[in-house]
């Protein structure tokens, strides 16, 4: 369980985040949505102290993380960035890196066992000795998620994990995240741009605009008004075969046919 309480963040004089508050329970998936520059990625990086917030607190299972060492935070919160830079590492070594918060001098048998278990769960065994730069975008994203899972975190933060993936890989990646959340009870906070993926895979959605949270609701409560307030576009919510879809109505912002 995570509680984000009144987080604010500034770059010099410029306020990027203002008084963000949200909470989520174990196994819950929260989509963080909003237009470019709304502060979504900054919020994610303030939660695990990659960036130091100017005020506010984050509590994991009731425990404040502000006084914790980086290693202890990394045992509680895992993070998947938009893009991996681990080009020349093998898949196994890249996943093993997720055990970094637990490694003292050398890796233990347990570390290897946990990596094997997660690789098996994600179907990555056949890639284990391949270099990261030999993998497709979808495979790389899976490895990044595997690395986060071997951290055995209570909270998983993902920054636009589907942005460079084709539809098939988007669905596969989101299914994988849902499986991890539900089976291991991990709370997931995920930055997404695709509203339909968010409606389909997230339990709750946190809408942001200009560094502020404007609405936090269940995915089935999202309406056109919320989308208009957050993105500045008109949208309808349609239900097809029992599933809800967002349909953007804005035809041409500049008035052309």
């Amino acid at each position, binding site marked *: 369980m995570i509680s984000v309480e009144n987080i604010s963040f500034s770059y010099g004089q410029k306020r990027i985040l203002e008084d963000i508050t949200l909470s989520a329970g174990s196994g819950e998936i929260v989509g963080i949505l909003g237009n470019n520059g709304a502060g979504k990625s900054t919020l994610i990086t303030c939660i695990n102290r990659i960036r130091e917030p100017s005020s506010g607190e984050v509590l994991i299972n009731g425990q404040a993380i502000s006084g914790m060492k980086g290693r202890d935070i990394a045992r509680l919160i895992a993070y998947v*960035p938009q893009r*991996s830079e*681990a080009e*020349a*590492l093998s898949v196994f070594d890249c996943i093993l*890196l997720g055990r*970094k918060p637990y*490694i003292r001098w050398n890796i233990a048998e347990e570390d290897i066992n946990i990596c094997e278990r997660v690789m098996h769960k994600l179907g990555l065994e056949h890639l284990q000795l391949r270099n990261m730069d030999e993998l497709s975008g979808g495979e790389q994203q899976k490895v990044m998620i595997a690395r986060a899972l071997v951290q055995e975190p209570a909270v998983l933060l993902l920054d636009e994990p589907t942005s460079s993936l084709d539809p098939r890989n988007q669905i596969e990646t989101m299914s994988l995240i849902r499986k991890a959340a539900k089976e291991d009870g991990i709370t997931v906070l995920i930055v997404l741009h695709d509203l339909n993926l968010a409606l389909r895979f997230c339990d709750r959605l946190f809408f942001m605009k200009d560094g502020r949270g404007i609405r936090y609701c269940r995915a089935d409560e999202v309406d056109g008004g919320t989308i208009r307030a957050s993105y500045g576009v008109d949208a309808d919510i349609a239900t097809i075969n029992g599933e809800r879809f967002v349909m953007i109505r804005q035809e041409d912002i500049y008035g052309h046919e």
Partner: protein
Amino acid sequence: MGRSEERTYRSYILRKWLIIAAMLLALAAVSFLSLLAGSSSLTFADIFHSLTGQGSREQGIIIWNIRMPRIAAAIAVGAALSLSGCIMQCVLHNPLASSSTLGVSQGASFGAALALISIGAGTTAAPWLVTASAFAGGIATTIAMLVLSRLRISTPSSMILAGVAISSMFSGATTLIQYSADDTMVASIVYWTFGNLGRASWSEIAMIASASLLSFSFFMLNRWNYNAIGSGRHTAKSLGVNTGFLIPMSLALCALMTSVAVAFTGCISFIGLIAPHAVRKLVGNDFRFLIPGSAIAGAILLLASDIACRTAAAPIVLPVGALTSFIGAPIFLCLILRERRKA
């Protein structure tokens, strides 16, 4: 997952350690070759007898006072320069980084030259004075580089351009202080800027080796942290790496190793750039292997260059710094072209 996959990974790791072991054997072989090479022709038997204390006094002097210190200096300096290049490339996220391409060597050279000329250190004072002055020059350049790397405009190529600018500035400053020195001192400074392994005494070699060993231990202790930094600074922080301490501390140790090496053997360029890249081809970017591999490869490369310098125009001994620059510059250009293609 079964035990077969684990065995596969274990054998993959074992293969990498075997490569490191093979490199160590190669270093031993090149060291032995270096004992044989020189203007005074010694045979395999002569060397064996001298090493076991049964050779003539003259042969003993050649081996223990001339060739052995030269080999030890090449190993210590080669390892120091290569290690610093390997770590700089990682923490600055710049494959073109090394102490010579970023101007750290030139900064250290200026510091050492200043000490040599202004206070006559190295001839009269303790060698640590030259080292301290070289370190001051090296660390000043490192701080400038660290500040530049934090600026958003910095790309690998622009950092190298900044290194060129800093190098030019220090070269100019070194020329200016030479201007005020006497002829003998100027000759010794010019000779020293060529880079020469024959100058270092056992006590100076011990200083270079101590700095290298201290840094090597620190780097090995942090090998997992460097792997994390290699995956991006945000990823490293999210894995619990204290980048705020590790990056400046690593760069300070790189500056220390470079400065000590430069203070006693002069400017030897490009070892720190080439050796880590060569090792990456063999063991990948895993710092568990890249750190020891780079140290050994740097030692082999400098030792082999030194053998070439001693034998190519024997009995004249060519300055090793000139040879490493001659070989290193084209490789450096290839790396720049590769980076441009990636971009």
